[in-house]
């Protein structure tokens, strides 16, 4: 039986030395879930247990994982599983730790989901910068093939499974699942029109499950210990644990695995050791650069970090990349940084994002370098509003989160940067 200490389901390597070695993983009961599933369980049963566990996608959107698997079109074959290891959101670094230190548990999750939807090929799509990690994973996949956990007719059944890694070319947008699929097909990484969604039209047009690395890494223990066990962690609607990537103005940045619905205060102050130099906390971005800026007041700090509650304080849990911002940070500077990130990463497929983010970057740059006017702030807000709700994929909206909430919740930081006497420059002929 796999050992679980406290609430560490995913970062078990911190408790079990050398868990990244196959023999250690096997000794801990590794691949027993997979073997049990393939030899003794109907594929649908696996899906059902995952459904019952209430596991929700850890890639950002929080979509119920078992429900997604059950959408797979059973009249169209073959099926594919793609593990989303693009991990490109600034401030997110959890998938990397899992893949580096607890790779076999992640593999086993991929393999279980493949079995559940009867896919014979599963892919791990890694961001291009993870080439060294991909190399390590490839070696481990070879090992699994040699030991009979991957390949043809597994455990004497008719089920065969191959696992491959695939490297991206360094685009944030390729973490969006349909852009990822385009990229895997050798095309320019741009999101597809949805619907149809990947479970009906995915890789090479075939039914495909795309799941985040962390999501999949939960599955082996859910299958081993059951849905009820898993639901001991977290809340009714957000069960389980979550790896929180903590960064920014905090004493002990890093990954912390806590039950969902732990509070920001607990994460930042208990585990993260608080703010350096005794500064006061000013704002929190809960989902990396795509986040709105949450005003870090007591109400926010005591908010449980689950998919529902974070929305109540004007944020999103997303991939749970918690960036702490203290009082020394000028929010207009921060907004400028995030907008530049999105300007660099917009795929350019749809007009509002391609043009709007480019435009916003001029405005935030101007405001940040002190040559902006008050009208520029109004205009910036307007441009951001005009982007919102009009884009093809979520990146467009992501790019406006910090802008809109920054101006709305921290107006002084912007006003202080523009001189009241600065002439408006928003008309060409004046």
């Amino acid at each position, binding site marked *: 039986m796999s050992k679980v200490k406290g609430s560490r389901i995913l970062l078990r390597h911190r408790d079990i030395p050398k868990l990244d070695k196959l023999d250690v993983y096997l000794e801990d009961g590794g691949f027993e879930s997979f073997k049990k599933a393939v030899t003794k369980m109907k594929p649908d049963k696996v899906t059902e247990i995952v459904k019952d566990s209430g596991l929700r996608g850890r890639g950002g959107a929080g979509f119920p994982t078992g429900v997604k698997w059950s959408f797979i079109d059973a009249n169209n074959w073959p099926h594919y599983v793609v593990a989303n290891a693009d991990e490109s959101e600034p401030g997110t670094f959890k998938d990397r730790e899992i893949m580096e230190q607890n790779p076999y548990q992640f593999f086993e999750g991929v393999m279980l989901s493949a079995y559940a939807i009867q896919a014979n090929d599963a892919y791990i799509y890694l961001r291009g910068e993870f080439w060294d990690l991909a190399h390590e994973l490839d070696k481990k996949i070879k090992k699994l093939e040699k030991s009979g956990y991957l390949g043809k007719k597994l455990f004497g059944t008719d089920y065969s499974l191959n696992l491959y890694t695939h490297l991206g070319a360094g685009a944030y947008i390729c973490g969006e699942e349909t852009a990822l699929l385009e990229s895997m097909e050798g095309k320019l990484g741009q999101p597809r029109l949805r619907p149809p969604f990947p479970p009906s039209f995915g890789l090479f047009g075939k039914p495909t499950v795309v799941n985040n690395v962390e999501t999949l890494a939960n599955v082996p223990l859910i299958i081993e210990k059951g849905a009820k066990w898993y639901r001991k962690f977290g809340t009714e609607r957000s069960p389980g644990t979550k790896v929180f990537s903590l960064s920014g103005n905090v004493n002990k940045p890093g990954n912390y695995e806590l039950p969902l619905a732990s509070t920001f205060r607990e994460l930042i102050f208990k585990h993260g050791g608080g703010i350096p130099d005794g500064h006061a906390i000013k704002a929190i971005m809960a989902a990396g650069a795509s986040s709105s800026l949450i005003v870090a007041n007591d109400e926010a700090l005591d908010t449980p970090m689950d998919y529902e509650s974070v929305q109540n304080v004007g944020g999103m849990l997303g991939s749970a990349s918690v960036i702490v911002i203290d009082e020394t940070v000028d929010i207009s500077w921060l907004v400028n940084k995030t907008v530049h990130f999105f300007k660099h990463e917009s795929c350019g497929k*749809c007009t509002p994002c391609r043009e709007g983010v480019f435009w916003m970057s001029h405005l935030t740059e101007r405001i940040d370098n002190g040559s902006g006017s008050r009208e520029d702030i109004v205009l910036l807000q307007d441009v951001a509003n*005009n982007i919102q709700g009009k884009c*093809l994929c979520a990146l467009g909206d992501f790019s406006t989160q910090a802008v809109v909430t920054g101006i709305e919740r921290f107006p002084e930081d912007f006003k202080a940067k523009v001189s009241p006497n600065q002439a408006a420059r928003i008309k060409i002929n004046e």
Partner: protein
Amino acid sequence: MSELVKNEAAQNMVTLTIDDHTMSVPEGTLVVDAARSIGLDIPVFCYHPKMEPVGMCRMCLVEIGTPMRDRTTSEPILEDDGSPKIQFFPNLMTGCTFRASEGMVVRGYTEKVTAARKEVLEFLLTSHPLDCPTCDKGGECPLQNLTMQFGDGESRFIYDEKMHSAKHVALGDLIFLDRERCIQCARCTRFQDEIVDDQVIGFSNRGRALEIVTFSDPGFDSYWSGNTTDICPVGALTTADFRFGARPWEMNASASICNHCAVGCNLTFNTRREVKSGGEKIIKRVMPRQNEAVNEIWICDKGRFAYHFTASDQRLNQPLIRKDGKLVPSSWELALDLVTSRFKNAGENLVTLAGGRLSNEDLFNLAELSAHLGGDALLYSDMAGGDLVSRLGVGEGTNFSDMGPETAILVVACNLEEEAPLWWLRIKQAAERGAKVIVANPRKTKLDRSAIHNLRYEYGQEAGLVTALLSAISPKQPKSPAFVNKLAKDKEVKAAAKALSEAENTVILFGSEGTSYAASAALAQACANLLIASGHIGRPNNGLIGVWDKGNAQGAWDMGLRPSEDLDAALKTSQAVYISAADPAGDSKQYASALKKADFVVVQELYMTATAELADVVLPAQAFTEREGTYTSGERRVQRFYPAVPSLPDLLPDFGITAEIAGRLGLELEKTAPASVMLQIAEVVPDYAELTYQKLAKVEKQFPLIGREDVYYGGTSYQNSQGLGVQLKPAAQNGDSPVLVITELPEVKLSGEELLAVPVTRLLDLGNTVTPSEVLVTRLAKPHVALHPQDAEKLGVEWGSKVKLILNGSTQTVLVEFDNSMPHGVVLVPRSLGIPIISPTPATIKVL
């Protein structure tokens, strides 16, 4: 897509309301198409009615609501007044990706919607240069028009912060890209991928830096490139031919028909008077004109760019008479009198030889004159079977766009994209709808990609292959040579035969890949036999199509002209030869020497061709752009063309010249009004009995609705207001029941070291009507031959090297290309590249 609207009967209809207009459309129709089909506007940039929606530009955002239903009873929830309660989506939705459903309500002009349009336009304009005064698209530009309609008068973006990019990027020799103007709608790239399957352009980079690039060598290597300039919603893509040529509003438009191949694409000539032309009206560009039964809204680059021949300064402008061995100018009177007296003397020894680019009216008068004297009226062509086409069909009502799973299409001895590009396109699309396409050809062609069966045979065995298909389905097998029996047992052939015979509808297209006249005759008959035996005649979407080498070859057959089985002999033994729109001397030394032997040669032409050089009298004719007339396409659709530019002074149309000669010989023929010639044709040619110019000019509503005001939707292709033409009924549709005719199959024999040289067709060849278009020169094929790489290796020949080709008694230096799909022992010789080839001939290749 709006094509759905056509098949109302077959579809589940739903009722929706768009801005207070309630309409019924097939379920699944896109909201923008539904709106457009009744003339309402939901502006789009990236959506195009001929392509799948992508939802990129966000211009088409509208409010969409659907009827609310009670969760438990699923009964509709009603308002107080009894009308269904509509729930609108909180966000605006893209009308180009949303499909109509029962009870849907669309609001296209609310404050929220018009604000969104203004915002999307503002976004697009932040990156757009303010080029309108010098932009070719100005005046027919969707971005300009929609900005005027929905945009703001002022810019909030600082001009200095605009991103600048390259403005004159030659994507290829024909198409220029202005990267600043591009709005990244991907219409051009999707056209190249989805519609014509030449993936030669695409996006590179991302975000604001996203830009169109070409990745073929040579750049933008596609026969379809010009169409991208029609559907580009801004002035980003322009043709090398027209850019900076004129403003759209300065030009007139006149309807015409392309006569480069047998498809008969509908065109519009845009004309303008200008200083450069000395105040004369000249053609500035060729645009496609919508005919959904012929070319939809597309044309190939040959049709678009190879029009300059009509305005060439090499045009003949006065009659010439041979005096003391030299051709000297003459008056019309003198020339016509001379011709008349010699024709009278020749009587039944007059040979009339006409090319398939003449109009029906020209050909009719030629045939009448020839019959009056008792001479032979010959069609200058190496293809046979026009008589079979007019007997078997295709049936009236045939339209490739209607073909799907119920239809099988056999394309034999044909490189269809090279020989008739639009048919390639439309058959490819039929295949995408499920039509069973079978390609039989000795080597690979682009249509193979769409085929369920690719049948290979040796050059010369084309009729045999088709006979084998017949053997495979017919229990009463005709006695056939061994190779046919062997082919008939081939698994692929059997499967193809089954598909062809079992399909509800079957169409066969035969081309001229590797065929001589004799081979073509056998092939056409074999195809006819197969159709007759399987009962695929006399109905729409069934029958035979000749992929003719000239635009009006079918018309020539219908007017009673026939190719000669031995043209050489016919010319030699004649007393007078009357040649119109044909250049036999240019094609073959043998014909040239035969003509030299002929007593008296009259050539009616546009330029001084090699044949005209040998003439005793040269009569200059009007180009088709300067006059009216009709052509009959390979699908037997008779279509009108109209004058676009004034005639050169003192020139007559071909039928007029012939009528002048005839008049002097006591035969009254119509001289001036082609409409009157058509009335006579209707009296004499049974299939044309019902035709009048009025009927040919009729139009009806076509889908998608395209036109001048809504360039944003379909592009700048012209609306058809001058006639969709009339498709003729073949005899089989009028009760004729033809029987099988078993002909002997020709065989080609070779001796020893020789290769078999076979004629094949290239679209962009060096034909008389192509080379005057300077813009095309670099795109034209160079004199070359193709060899199998293994044969080349044996000969010690490298790709791209020059070799000596000895053929038909002449020696020529040509380039070598490879084709690893072609049979061994063969050298492919493209027609009209200046290499004399008319039929398969032994040839020798020597390394230089």
